[in-house]
């Protein structure tokens, strides 16, 4: 058991492909936070993010035999997550501000406890800036947003983002530049 926890992704995938579900469960534990956060960045809704990311694990396990090892497991898995998120975004065209609204509804004491270094005015500005960022992310082209989230939020290299999105590194660079330029523009008042 302890040995399996130390195994590399490729080894765990190989054993999972032979029907060892426990090995796949180790991969679930390894990637669940990242998968959830990608989905959350797309949807801004905790429940939807949980459902989408869990669905990605189910699909990955069901199609594991199709994984041929030419790319790394995580780029293959991220592609499943991103495709599910893009598909979800297509079906549910809406701006979700729930998380931000919840944040603004929190009692002032709690917010001060969470981050006492900011004065109330600064906190309001930070909340407004965050709202702008999310609004800009919502309105930008989906692939551009995906490239930005994978690079900026998930820390994937541009090469890996290109693999996940099945495109060229040059295209990812353009997406990234446009996304950053748009975000910076949206924060004119705050930077």
């Amino acid at each position, binding site marked *: 058991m302890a040995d399996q926890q130390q195994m590399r992704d490729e080894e765990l995938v190989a054993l999972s492909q032979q029907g060892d*579900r426990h090995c*796949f*469960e180790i991969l*679930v*534990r390894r990637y*669940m*936070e990242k998968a*959830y*956060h990608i989905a*959350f960045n797309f949807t801004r809704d905790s429940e939807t993010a*949980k459902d989408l990311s*869990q669905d990605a*694990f*189910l699909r990955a*396990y*069901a199609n594991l035999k199709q994984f041929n090892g030419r790319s790394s497991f995580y780029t293959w898995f991220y592609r499943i997550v991103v495709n599910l998120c893009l598909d979800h975004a297509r079906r549910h065209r809406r701006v979700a501000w729930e*998380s931000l609204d919840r944040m603004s509804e929190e009692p002032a004491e709690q917010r001060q406890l969470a981050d006492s270094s900011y004065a109330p005015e*600064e906190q309001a*500005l*930070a909340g407004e*800036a965050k709202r702008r*960022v999310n609004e800009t992310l919502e309105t930008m082209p989906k692939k551009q947003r995906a490239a930005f989230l994978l*690079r*900026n*939020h998930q820390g994937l*290299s*541009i090469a890996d983002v290109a693999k996940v999105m099945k495109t060229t590194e040059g295209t990812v*660079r*353009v997406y*990234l*530049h446009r996304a*950053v*330029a748009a*975000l*910076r523009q949206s*924060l*004119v*008042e*705050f*930077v």
Partner: protein
Amino acid sequence: MKNSAPLETACKQYEEDLVLHYYGENGDNERRRVEQHLTSCHSCRRFLGDLQRVLPQMAGAEEMPQAFWDNYYRETVSKLAEQEERKFWWRSLFNPMRTWMAPAFGTVAVAVLVVGLVIGKGNLRLFVEPRGESIPREILADQNQLEFFESMDMLEALDRLENQDDQKTDTTNGESNRAELPGVVA
């Protein structure tokens, strides 16, 4: 977070490289070129400073409590098990826990057969024997009588043939006689 200084744009030809520079994605040549430019360009330095200040804040993920992840993991594992169960539903038929089902099905099958035989009271032959022409029981009782009737049929058939022959012969003779008589025109 608010800054009163006006927003400055980077030099157009360096903007994309500055973004890549921030992410550490520039090659050696581009990195050296950008660093050299930054030493002399205030706008680009400020642009890069903005990226360094703003982008990490955007990436800050909402921290979830450990209980959330424990629950998430349990749910996912449970869903995986359900999915596998659905995929291999036929395995449940051979599940050792259900070995009682084989003798149960056998007993039910035997019971149905016995009940069918009792209710049918031996009338099974009706379903098995082919339905032929009905032959009177009196004839079937005696084999000699059957042979007799068969020979009678044969004799009757011979009689019919002889009569047909006779009729043909009569007709032929009549015609030839008429032809031989003088003054009779055929």
